[in-house]
């Protein structure tokens, strides 16, 4: 295992110390329980937006804390859902009297831990709404599974709900917007290589030189199928097809196209993938009105990419364009 770390067991704590040192003017890092919160929290009268999940997906979620996006994020151990005590403390830290939204990726662990936290917070008097993100079309037969996973739409929902909260909209509307993003977004990802979880110390799975995994999860969970390596255009087509047919996205639609790197894939390859996305959508009469290209939801150093399409309307566009000031996503501020 070749990593720029000290003790595999201390990765999350030390990274949080780095975050505290780097962004101390804007963010506060709490230890035991661990969470990252806007330095000016709670913002009185503003809905608090909280997310969280396993570490190893940086910049998600801690890198999205700041004005216009999240009020706080709870990092778990690497690839492991955080715990209710973190979520409870963070919920209370950002509760400015207008209620708190929990944005939860649909994984059994995240769901159960956030459920516990919401129960505890509500029992202590907070107003909490939860929105489940489950945009991953790689998961089929969702009645026989834990349901679709939350992947790329998470970033989009956090940005858009965060903008709505920043604009002073009430909890019900902020939650409704996050739900709308989730309903109008679909994603799928693939991996060229595995990643190595620090405290495990060896690759989560093995892929031969000529293989790739389609429909991979962001924790190195095996995907829909393992197939022969293909050129970028064919890979993009393979990911886009189920995304397009699922919602479906149709001629005349306006979309936000998000090409996400899994961590170990260079920007130049994401640009090549975006080229194909724009060709395919162009051919289908779908307009890419906004885009996001980069490594925003990662799986440590995994090589691979995911594609997310979000159907846009004027309200979503203006919330997407609203200023955001976080370490991981920043514009207009």
């Amino acid at each position: 295992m070749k990593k720029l770390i000290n003790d595999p067991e201390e990765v999350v704590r030390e990274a949080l110390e780095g975050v505290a040192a780097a962004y101390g003017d804007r963010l506060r890092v709490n230890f035991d329980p661990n969470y990252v919160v806007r330095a000016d929290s709670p913002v009185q009268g503003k809905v608090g937006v909280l997310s969280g999940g396993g570490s190893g997906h940086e910049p998600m979620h801690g890198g999205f804390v700041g004005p216009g996006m999240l009020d706080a994020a709870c990092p778990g151990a690497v690839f492991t859902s955080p715990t209710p005590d973190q979520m409870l403390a963070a919920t209370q830290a950002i509760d400015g009297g207008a209620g708190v939204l929990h944005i939860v990726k649909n994984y059994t662990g995240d769901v159960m831990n956030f459920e516990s936290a919401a129960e505890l917070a509500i029992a202590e008097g907070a107003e909490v709404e939860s929105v489940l993100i489950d945009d991953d079309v790689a998961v089929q037969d969702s009645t026989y599974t834990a349901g679709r996973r939350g992947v790329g739409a998470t970033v989009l929902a956090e940005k858009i709900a965060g903008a709505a909260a920043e604009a002073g909209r009430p909890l019900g509307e902020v939650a409704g917007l996050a739900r709308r993003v989730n309903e109008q977004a679909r994603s799928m990802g693939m991996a060229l290589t595995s990643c190595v979880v620090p405290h495990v110390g060896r690759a989560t799975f093995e892929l031969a030189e000529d293989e790739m995994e389609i429909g991979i999860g962001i924790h190195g969970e095996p995907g829909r199928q393992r197939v022969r390596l293909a050129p970028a255009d064919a890979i993009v087509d393979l990911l886009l097809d189920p995304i397009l047919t699922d919602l479906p996205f149709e001629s005349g639609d306006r979309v936000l196209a998000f090409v996400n790197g899994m961590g170990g894939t260079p920007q130049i390859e994401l640009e090549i993938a975006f080229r194909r996305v724009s060709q395919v959508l162009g051919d289908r009469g779908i307009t890419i009105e906004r885009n996001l290209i980069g490594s925003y939801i990662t799986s440590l150093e995994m090589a691979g990419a995911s594609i997310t399409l979000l159907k846009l309307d004027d309200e979503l566009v203006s919330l997407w364009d609203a200023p955001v000031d976080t370490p991981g996503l920043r514009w207009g501020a």
Partner: protein
Amino acid sequence: MGVPDWMRMTAAVLERDRDRLNRLDADIGDGDHGANMARGFAAVVARMDGAPEDHPATELRAVGMTLLSTVGGAAGPLYGSFFIGMATALREAGPEPELGAPEWAAALSAAVAGVQRRGRAEPGDKTMVDALVPAREALDAAAADGASLADGLRAAAEAAERGALETIPLVARKGRASYLGERSAGHLDPGAASSALLLRAAAEAWGETR
């Protein structure tokens, strides 16, 4: 023998089997189950060390809360519910309960009910429930037969181990392994494996004093 011994044995065995559980989880999940469990039970033992002996319900509730705040993932809330369920049942057994087979059987029933309430898994879904339900049934039967706690827990541990092995051919319908669909068949469920370890540790903790 009591809860602290059970927890120490469980922690030791999870530390020993940490890699095996990680590997089982890597096959059909995300490879962290061993690390999660070892971290949680190490915290349980650390918080227990030096603490005075207490009502087992109080001890078990503390175990559940510690697991809830240190394990994370799916296993954290599930094992948290397990111990909190156990604690609630034992609380009802009075201020200084004699821990015999019937009391343990009632506690395990409440524990398994807690897990199922939280996770909504049924037997056959390829989860820890496939180890826990047979264990509960075996302990219930032993208690009804008037068996000793040690014998009852041994029967429960054996049933849990059998139940865990029987997850191998199953296709997962809950948790992360369910994303694999048919590809999850042919693998032992890591949570079922850790449940079997937990019950084997109980059989040993209470077996020695028989």
